[in-house]
């Protein structure tokens, strides 16, 4: 039985230092929800407020209709997975998984069979009698997940659970977490600073900075239509170029392009992702000089200097012979459907403003 989480005007302070000024958020029942942001943005603080480990200085937290501000962490029925796994080192794998069940009114038989079920589900059944110190990082993470899920929690909270794993294992565990969350269908709040991980795993993402939610949406909407410059920079990579806007036409370094759903007059910042630049033979576009070429297998990255001396990053799929020598003159145009246009201070996306 999972629940929806309703957070109204949350306030978190450490002394005089306000971490979260005023945060309101609704997380749907059964949803995989990610809090994404740079370190110090308040994402872990918020997670720990939901878990009950941090005091709440203001606002209301609800699980469905139930007010939980003052509820003891042990009574919230939460499954939590910690960054350092927090496996009990003096207990076997099985005893770790059974720990939560023993704090509830289960009879011995049920405890055993439930633990077995989740040990198998997490593919750690064969390690059940080992001590945690004899497990690899990935296996410990599986124990942590089994231990959190076996108690049939209302909510699963995960605090950067993959950050201590190596790159390959991280991908594997990412998929495992996603699969099991779908299978169990439990409301999950996931904290990470890794935007790729967030996009791969989440139903919805809240991008946080300075204790405030910058944008809340699906991975697609956040990637394609970042609401402000911070989100555009934080999610994926982008090049920001100052340009003039006149109604729906922007003048990017002399190259005029028309953008759908745009109506603004004045100076703007155009956010062009590396894959949104297109090399062309048309000389009536932006004339630029290739500075460097970096071959990364699947893609090749070009560092290209624009007429205003700004160097932008452009990504193309690698071809057998598309390496371009540094110093070569090229012409570039932009994918007008995908670019985003911001006010000069970067606070507002002018394209979305018209979508609304």
């Amino acid at each position: 039985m999972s629940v929806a989480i309703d957070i109204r005007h949350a306030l978190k302070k450490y002394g005089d230092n306000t971490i979260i000024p005023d945060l309101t958020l609704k997380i749907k029942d059964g949803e995989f929800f990610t809090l994404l942001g740079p370190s110090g943005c308040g994402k872990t603080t918020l997670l720990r407020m939901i878990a009950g480990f941090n005091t709440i200085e203001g606002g209301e937290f609800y699980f469905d209709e139930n007010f939980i501000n003052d509820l003891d962490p042990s009574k919230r029925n939460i499954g939590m997975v910690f960054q350092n796994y927090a496996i009990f080192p003096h207990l076997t794998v099985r005893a770790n998984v059974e720990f939560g069940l023993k704090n509830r009114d289960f009879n011995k038989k049920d405890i055993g069979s439930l633990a077995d079920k989740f040990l198998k589900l997490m593919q750690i059944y064969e390690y059940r009698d080992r001590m945690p110190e004899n497990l690899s990082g990935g296996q410990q993470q599986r124990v942590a997940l089994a231990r959190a899920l076996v108690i049939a929690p209302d909510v699963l909270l995960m605090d950067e659970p993959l950050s201590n794993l190596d790159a390959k294992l991280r991908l594997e565990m990412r998929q495992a977490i996603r699969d099991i969350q779908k299978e169990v269908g439990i409301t999950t709040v996931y904290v990470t600073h890794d935007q790729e991980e967030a996009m791969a795993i989440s139903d919805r993402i809240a991008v946080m900075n300075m204790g405030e939610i910058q944008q809340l949406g699906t991975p697609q909407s956040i990637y394609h239509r970042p609401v402000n410059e911070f989100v555009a920079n934080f999610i994926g990579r982008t090049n920001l170029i100052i340009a003039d806007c006149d109604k729906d036409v922007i003048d990017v370094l002399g190259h005029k392009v028309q953008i759908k759903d745009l109506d603004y007059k004045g100076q703007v910042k155009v956010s062009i992702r590396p894959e949104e630049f297109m090399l062309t033979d048309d000389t009536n576009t932006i004339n630029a000089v290739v500075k460097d070429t970096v071959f990364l297998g699947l893609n090749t990255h070009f560092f290209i200097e624009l007429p205003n001396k700004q160097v932008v990053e452009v990504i193309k799929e690698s071809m057998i012979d598309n390496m371009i020598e540094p110093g070569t003159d090229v012409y570039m145009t932009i994918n007008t459907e995908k670019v985003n246009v911001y006010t000069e201070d970067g606070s507002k996306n002018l394209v979305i403003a018209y979508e609304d």
Partner: protein
Amino acid sequence: MKIKKSKINLWSTSTLSLLVLYTIFLIIPLFILLSESFVDRDTGQFTLENFQRFFGKKYYYSTLLNSFKVTVSVTAIAVALGTTLAYFFARFKIRGAKTLRILIILSSMSAPFVGAYSWILLLGRNGVVTKFFEGVLGVVMPDIYGFKGILLVLSLQLYPLIFLYISGALSNVDNSLLEASQNLGCTGAKRFFKVVVPLIFPTVLAGALLVFMRCFSDFGTPMLIGEGYRTFPVTIYDAYMSELGGNNSFAASIAILAIILTLIIFMVQRYIANKKAFTMNSINKIRPIRIGGIRNILIHIFAYVLISLSIAPQAYVIYTSFRNVNGTVFTSGYSLNNYVIAFSKMGNAIRNTIVIPLIALAFVLIFAVFIAYLVVRKRSKITATIDTVSMIPYIVPGIVVGIALANAFSRPPMVLTGSMTIMVIALIIRRLPYTIRSSVATLQQIPITIEEAALSLGASNIKTFWKITIPMMSAGIISGAILSWITMISELASAILLYTGKTRTLTIEVYTQVLRGNYGVAAALAAILAVLTTLSLVLFNKVNKGRDLSM
């Protein structure tokens, strides 16, 4: 909400009771001591007469200078010996290093006065070595009594503490730092002084403070081997004993002076240590390497001679315990006579040596774990106060603890003098600071998320504490407990003022038998004590090398 209330109750109740206990058994006794030193018993007026008396007579104030001379010299020698030896053990392969290590620890674990007594047997007026040199070689040996003797005994007794501290610090020094300095052209002794010493300096300071405190407050050694060379604790003891039953104010005044002095030393050390503090983490530990040639031989000679000298007193005491003896004169032949007499004379000393420290140990462990938990996990102004108060006994010499307790509890409303209880309390007060420190260190290494995991899995605060926190601390607690136990069974300074015929311990008994000149019985009792210590140490090694919780 019920849960929340009971949680507050458990921790606030324990905080409050700890404060009360500390107030009754530490703060109030020290205040009584303080007031006695400044207040004239007869008139009830404020007076500095006691202090004038102390500083007015060379007989008194010279003991202060003597104590400083001894303490500074011993600390310097102990630091030099301990650091050098630890560095050699870390850097170079030494034959039998494992056994040597155990011998080093063992030599530091006996009561210092046993060392003094044994050195008198060896190098004293009628000492075996003295006789040998005089009789066979015709060489007159220099006198062992006084300053030289104290220096010899305490340096050999206390350098192992530095050795242990520095060995620990060296295992945190990354070998690549040594390689880097070599790469930059700095090697050998130059590297030792320019790179290694600065890296371990904070630890050297901490170890030096411990040696300083132990040495400054040591009472048995100067009593036995000092003869005319009187140190501060001896003066306190004499003043107290001569005034027994009457006015204790003079002894109280000297005791207060002792606390002020150790407090100053403690503050200075803290100040310097805080300035020099940094953290290290080694990935590549320094591994001992095999070297050859003359350096190798010299290092081995240094290590073996030093360790032989430090273990010699205990070995010799055990040897003499089997010899036939008549008073202070050893006669020919070997037997178990000493043990027979010892067992018949010693009455309940053995039982007391086990029972008193065991009871104290139980309390020390409970208090230490609770205080550590409050200090680390439940930080507040009150727990911070407890933290500070709990460290007071660290700087109060044992003899002063003894006087303070004897003073405070020899009158209503609480008369405890002569009871076993007061011996137990003295041991608790004396050992608690060390056990608290080690428990705090253990607890700090346990990530708080592990406790949070237990809470989120539905365990209550109390259950989490018992089922998760305590088991995870257990390895640290047990090894700390055994160390406490070893120091408790050889405690003399506070016990000498508090014991009665019913509550005497082995250590006190050895001391009194030595003073009475019953060398055979003393040797037998000391041997029993040594065996007890050795067994405890073996246990300690076993526990420590067992399943180590890795995090």
